[in-house]
Every structure is written in C-alpha cells, then in structure tokens.
C-alpha cells in the first residue's frame, strides 16, 4: 500500500498531534498531491498500528517500550526514533493560592503517591493553611501520566482520591474551579490558561526553583519535568519519496510549529542531525 502512491500515514500520541497537524497543514498546502493523514490513537495505539504496518510514522509522547520493540523486531520492521520537541510538565495551582511558591520533587512525591499521608497543605509544609488539597491528574493511560509517574512517583501508584481525566482541558477547569486544587499537564495547556492558573516553580537537581517557559525548557534547566516528544519513522517508508519529503519537511519546520502550538523547540542542531540521519537511511 505504501509504495508508489503519494501517501503519508501518521498516527499516535494525542500530545504530539498538534505539532504534526500543523506540519501536515503547511505541507499539504505546499504539496497538494501528497495525502498526509494524522490520526490520534494515543502513543500505545499508534505503536499498535505501526507494528501492524498501517502507518509510516508513529507519534509518541514516551520512548518505545520493550514489548513494542520486540514485536517490531518479530515483524522485521526497522525504524528510528527522533526527538521532535520538548514539553514541560507544568504543575499548577489555583490563582487564589498565595502560599505555594515552589515545590520539590520530594514534596510532589509525598503529595501524590498512593501511600501519601498528605491531606491538607499544612501536611506538605508547615505554615501552609490547613485546607484539604484537591488533586487533578491526566488519565493513567496517557503519556503525560506515565512520565510523571516515572519521574515523580518513581513507580508508586498515584493517590486514589486524585481526579483523573483524559482531557487536559477538564483538568484546567478543575484547578481553576477549586481553591485548593493542584494539577499537572502539558505546557501548552498552561500557556493557554496562564491568566487563570498559577504555575509552580519546581526545584531542579541543582537546587534552583525553576518555572517552565520556552527558555528553561529548551535549555534543560526546567528538569526533571521537561520531557521530549518523539516520532518513530519506518526505514522502509523513507524509500517512498513522499514520506521522505514529508519527514524532511517535518524536521525543517518542527521547531517553529511546536512553538506555534504551545510546545518548545529543540535546539536547531538536533533537527539538522535528524535530517542528516534520514538522508542516510533513505540513501540520498
């Protein structure tokens, strides 16, 4: 199905979708004869289709897992992982919350993990009000959750009374709606709702409290909560001119597009390297 025809099939993460949509929009305008489609099946769903041979490019908001690698190997599918952009997981509280000035990873862990004994703000830090905290988190099956789980909870389960939703907008609503709410989600959702939310600076490994923004995320200062977004490209597909051209176009424009839709671009050099790499793979 993939050869000869001018089709580019992309699917996967909902987090990455806006970037790829923007790329495809521009690309289609410039190359109306190429038919690029971007699906949203979630990172896992995207890999599922990638493995089944239904797509050329898979968007992912986390690195590929061992099981998925194994299945690809079994099928004899060769592919390469590329970073596409950066996302800064933003921890936010209600606008009226005037006590939280910063949080450490340990505090986050203490607050969010299942075994947590934290009920009120006072349990987090002395001097904070004795009011019950409301927790909002992305659904447990999303890339964002996965990352938070890995970095903050370190494998522990998330507390049971956290409100989970697959839709980050809903989380925004939750935190804006409750004075003692705290939540986290992708940088873009914070950026769009800056005025209604207060972002919490997170203490990084160097001991500085850093607020997420373009600069801190790109430079890596905002850590450990900034994470890379990926695309996985099938080698076989790059032999197809349309896919090759599309992929190249993607890396040429990803930075600009990522920022347009609320993410953070990688340093330019990384895109250059990526283009170099696909040239090699395609043998051009």
């Amino acid at each position: 199905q993939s050869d000869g025809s001018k089709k580019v099939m992309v699917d996967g993460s909902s987090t990455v979708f806006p970037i790829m949509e923007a790329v495809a929009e521009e690309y289609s305008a410039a190359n109306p004869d190429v038919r690029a489609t971007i699906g949203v099946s979630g990172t896992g769903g995207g890999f599922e289709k990638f493995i089944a041979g239904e797509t050329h490019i898979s968007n992912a908001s986390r690195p590929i897992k061992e099981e998925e690698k194994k299945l690809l190997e079994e099928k004899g599918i060769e592919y390469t992982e590329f970073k596409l952009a950066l996302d800064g997981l933003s921890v936010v509280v209600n606008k009226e919350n005037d006590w939280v000035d910063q949080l450490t990873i340990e505090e986050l862990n203490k607050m969010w993990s299942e075994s947590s004994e934290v009920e009120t703000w006072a349990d987090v830090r002395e001097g904070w009000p004795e009011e019950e905290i409301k927790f909002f988190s992305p659904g447990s099956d999303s890339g964002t959750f996965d990352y938070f789980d890995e970095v903050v909870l370190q494998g522990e389960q998330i507390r049971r009374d956290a409100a989970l939703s697959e839709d980050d907008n809903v989380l925004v609503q939750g935190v804006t709606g409750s004075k003692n709410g705290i939540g986290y989600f992708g940088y873009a959702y914070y950026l769009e709702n800056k005025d209604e939310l207060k972002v919490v600076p997170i203490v990084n490994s160097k001991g500085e409290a850093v607020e997420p923004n373009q600069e801190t995320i790109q430079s890596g200062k905002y850590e450990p909560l900034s994470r890379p977004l990926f695309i996985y490209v099938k080698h076989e597909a790059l032999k197809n001119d349309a896919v090759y051209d599309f992929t190249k176009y993607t890396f040429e424009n990803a930075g600009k597009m990522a920022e347009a839709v609320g993410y953070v671009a990688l340093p330019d050099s990384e895109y250059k390297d990526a283009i170099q790499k696909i040239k090699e793979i395609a043998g051009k």
Partner: protein
Amino acid sequence: MEANVRDMIKEKQSNRKLLQVSEKAAPFFFLVCAVISVLTTLGIIFTLLIETVSFFERVSIVEFITASEWYPFSEESPSFGIGSLIAGTLLITFIAMLVSIPIGLASAIYLSEYATPRARKVIKPVLEVLAGIPTIVYGFFALTFVTPLLQAIIKDLPIFNALSAGIVVGIMIIPMIASLSEDAMNSVPNAIREGALAMGSTRLEVALKVVLPAAFSGIIASFVLGISRAIGETMIVAVAAGSTPRFSLDVTESIQTMTAYIVQVSMGDATYGSTIYYSIYAVGMTLFVFTLIMNLIAQYISRRFKEEY
C-alpha cells in the same frame, strides 16, 4: 375486448419463469439478511472471546471477579477487579433511570393523552432531535453546565462525579423513552380510551388505569432500551464522570464505567499486546454479557405482561 383479459393472463402465465425464480430467491435472500444479524452477534462474541482468553491467561478469572480494585496501570501490582467498573456502570445507569423514567413516561403520557394533535406534532420531533444530539455534546454539557450547577447546591462536589454524568445520561435518554412509550400508548385503540372516558373517567384515570396497562409491554420495552443505552453510554461518562474506578455507591464521587475504561485505553498509551490492551476486551465481554442479561429479562417481562387488544 370480450374475455381477452383471461387469455392475456393465460398467455403470460406460460412465460413466468422469472417470477418463479424471484419467488424462490426472495425468501432465500431475506433469510441471508436475517442470518447476518446472527453473524454479527457471533462476530462480537468471537472477537471478544479470543482476546478475553488472552487476558485470562495473564490475569486469573478469580481475581477479575473478586478483586476489590480496578487499577491496571500500576507496573508492580496491577489489580483487575471488574467490580469497581461494574459499580460505576450501575451507578450511572441507576441515576439515569431515576431521571429518565419518570420524566420520559410523564412526557409520553402528556403527549399521548393530554396534548392537542398540533402540540404533539411539534413536540415529538423536537424530542427526537434531542435524541439525535451526539453524546459528546452532552458530555461537555454535563461538565461545563450541569456540574457547576450542582456544585452550587452540593458544596465540595468534585468536578468529576457520577451524579452529573448520570443526570445527563438520563436527560439524553428521556426522548427515547418518551417517544417509544408514546408510540406504545398511541397504538392503544381509541375505542378503548373512549370506553373509559364515557364512563366518567378523568384523563388521568384513562391514562393510568387503561392506557398504561394496555401499553405496558411497549413501555417496558422502552425502559429496557433506555437502560441498555445507559449501560452502554460512553462519551458522556468519559468526559464528565472522571476516570477513577471505585467500588462505591457514592454519587458525589468520581467513578469509571466499563465503557469509559475501554475508550480510555483505546485512546491512550497502552502497549499493543499488553495485559491492559487485552483487558479492554475482557471489559467489553462483561459489558456485552450485562446488556445481554438485561435484554433477556426485558423480553421475558414484555412477553409475560403483554395485554392483547
């Protein structure tokens, strides 16, 4: 043209091969159509069963039934107690029926027994439009309108809660129950209604004592379709009820239904071939069995109470 029709017919009679063929072929074709519905069911069972088996190879069926929690996403100690999802589903269904049965039935009675034909002609289609609104629209309606409204009444109501989602599922089902019950009541012959009115019955008495019992099986059928719809409703709950499986009957808490879980996983991050991936089929199977039982009960009821007229 004396008697020539007879001859014409005789003549045509001899070359009616085509007719005879279609006479034989038609029932066969229709049988094939009917069998496709059976194939669909088999297809569903087959699809669900295969993957469900893979699931039960990883998770024991005992755990599936008895574990008290549904938390498949933990890497170290996932737990697969379907009970929590079932509780969520039943909770939503229960709230929805509490809303939709009284209101739907009352609307049906109003339309069929009180409204003027003109009012009926206007209102019924309006209700049917209500039935056609995509559930995703209802979902956001629940989240951004009903929940804040409820929060004004119930302090501390979390943004995701079974109550709001259940009410809106109920609202979504109202037109269906109203419309189908109205049909059932409408098909009660007018002569019966007149008989009762002529005895000095009020409209209310005619409706409750004569028409309702006569239309009982049709009305029950509409309830059951409503319940099935509530059990199977996906987008409203996925948006407004949260995604926290909970084995509790507290309507003010966030819950998760079976359907919402399936969407969550199919939209999410789960690895193809992982236990989580297979779990959606096991949940789908449970859902299927649930609606199946519902429907069997319904068919029994409606056969049992059918009043002939």
